[in-house]
């Protein structure tokens, strides 16, 4: 069965979720990844949304925002932002997804300002829940298209802290858990390597060359000794994705 790079990306992301985990999801790619996981290897995972919802699985009816009625109907919890973001801050969320405009070598993510914040070249929407997810969830997953202008040496503005300046700088900043576990792109999976926690190539999606991934990355991309090919989507994974994406949005 054929599949698109986006589908590979979603399925790779879904494999980062373990069964029974509490997952901070969002809309779009992370929600699709959660949906695939819930329908395959992680039927007991639960997804949290920043607007106050928890769900066992994505809604079956189509919806455009996380606050649309289909996402509320049949939810496993409908409550406030304090209660949901509080799960993160209390250390009760295993894994969280964020996207962004830029991510850097140490997994820091910018969704605030390109250029000088006092007079930005581009004013981005801001953190939303991303800074909180990055600071306090157990494992952070960054999901983003793989382009040199997005994967940059150093972000202009750290909205959401990854490994900060690398080494022990994250714990030195007072963050005693979490950190970026993976950057999942349409080309590859990057993971922190060695004591510096610099993000290096851990796995390359089928049909992508190492050089392609290196060229599309804004920092000198180290390659893990055991870096191999990302296993292609299984039939079960693809079927799960297409069940929640009947209109082929991600194809």
């Amino acid at each position, binding site marked *: 069965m054929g599949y698109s790079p986006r589908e590979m990306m979603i399925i790779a992301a879904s494999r980062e979720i373990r069964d029974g985990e509490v997952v901070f999801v969002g809309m779009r790619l992370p929600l699709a990844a959660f949906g695939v996981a819930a329908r395959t290897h992680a039927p007991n995972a639960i997804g949290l949304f920043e607007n106050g919802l928890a769900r066992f699985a994505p809604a079956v009816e189509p919806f455009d*925002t996380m606050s649309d009625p289909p996402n509320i109907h049949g939810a496993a919890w409908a409550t406030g932002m304090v209660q949901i973001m509080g799960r993160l801050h209390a250390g009760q969320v295993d894994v969280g997804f964020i996207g962004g405009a830029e991510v850097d070598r140490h997994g820091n993510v910018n969704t605030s300002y390109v250029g000088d914040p006092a007079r930005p070249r581009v004013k981005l929407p*801001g953190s939303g829940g991303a800074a909180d997810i990055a600071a306090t969830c157990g494992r952070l997953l960054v999901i983003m298209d793989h382009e040199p202008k997005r994967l940059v040496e150093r972000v202009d503005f750290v909205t959401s802290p990854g490994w900060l300046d690398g080494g022990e700088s994250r714990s030195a900043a007072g963050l*005693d858990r979490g950190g970026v576990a993976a950057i999942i792109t349409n080309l590859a999976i990057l993971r922190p390597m060695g004591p510096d926690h610099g993000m290096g190539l851990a796995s390359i999606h089928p049909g992508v060359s190492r050089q392609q991934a290196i060229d599309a990355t804004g920092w000198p991309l180290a390659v893990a000794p055991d870096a191999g090919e990302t296993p292609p989507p299984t039939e079960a994974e693809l079927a799960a994705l297409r069940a929640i994406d009947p209109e082929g949005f991600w194809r």
Partner: protein
Amino acid sequence: MADKLASVADAVAALVRDGDSLVIGACLEAAIPFAAVHEIIRQGRRGLNAIAPISDAATDMLIGAGCVERVTGAWVGNVSGGLAHNYRRAAEQGLPHPIAIEDHSNFSLAMALMAGANGLPYVPVRSLLGSDILKTNRRLIRADDPFSPGKPVILVPACKPDVAILPVQRSDRDGNCHFWGSLVLVQEAALAAERVILLADEIVDTSVIVSDPNRILFPSFRVSAVCPARAGCHPSSLTGVWRRDTPFFVEYHTRSRDREGFLSWLREWVFDVEGHEAYLDKLGDRLERLRITGWAPPEPVNFAAV
């Protein structure tokens, strides 16, 4: 019991003042009081501090219309479109005039409103450690946790808005009301704000409300005005009543890409529209097609006294 019924126009005229800090909906993408947003623009309020957990295009409209001096927010954008054009123009080019931005994360803004609601002067959090938000929001203080020497905390000061404008599915004439669905910061905003304006999709008898006191998020003594406003949240959704009008948001996003387009949109949908009833007339059939027609009531519970 008091009767607090007022039109949206009268409530905005009486209760929203130049320079006020304002929560325009506290429910992210849903239950945004666009009817009041339009009225604030028509009445030409200036110098507002828009407190925005996310109020989707509403914040962008107010910025573009020149009503806003400051944004206190975790996320400002057009959910269905992407970056918010008026917000970008104001931040990047000072158009129509420069704005101040007080950056927050969801959790810090939630804690600020929770603190305001409960009279806490501030709340210490561990989120935001390591984030550059600390550099742009100078009201956040980094301090030592006296209970864990050597561990830093970020102190988030309480936020006490002057006004919160909140759509609810149903209210009585005194402001006893029900809100359901995802609750986001509706309770905190209503308990923290100096004045609360409700946009009630339906006015009901008090007996309907007290039949389920757990569905009440805040007491009526917090409410200053109750505005009967069917679909006052259009084009945003309202759990159990209205679906989201995504094409409307997309059209706004497209037309607001340049300033001229935004101004023409504003003329068409705000300045040339007399009030909320005229807005609903202009929507015509489009509105009824957004009505939720399904019926999924909860399994009942029992509140019997004996």
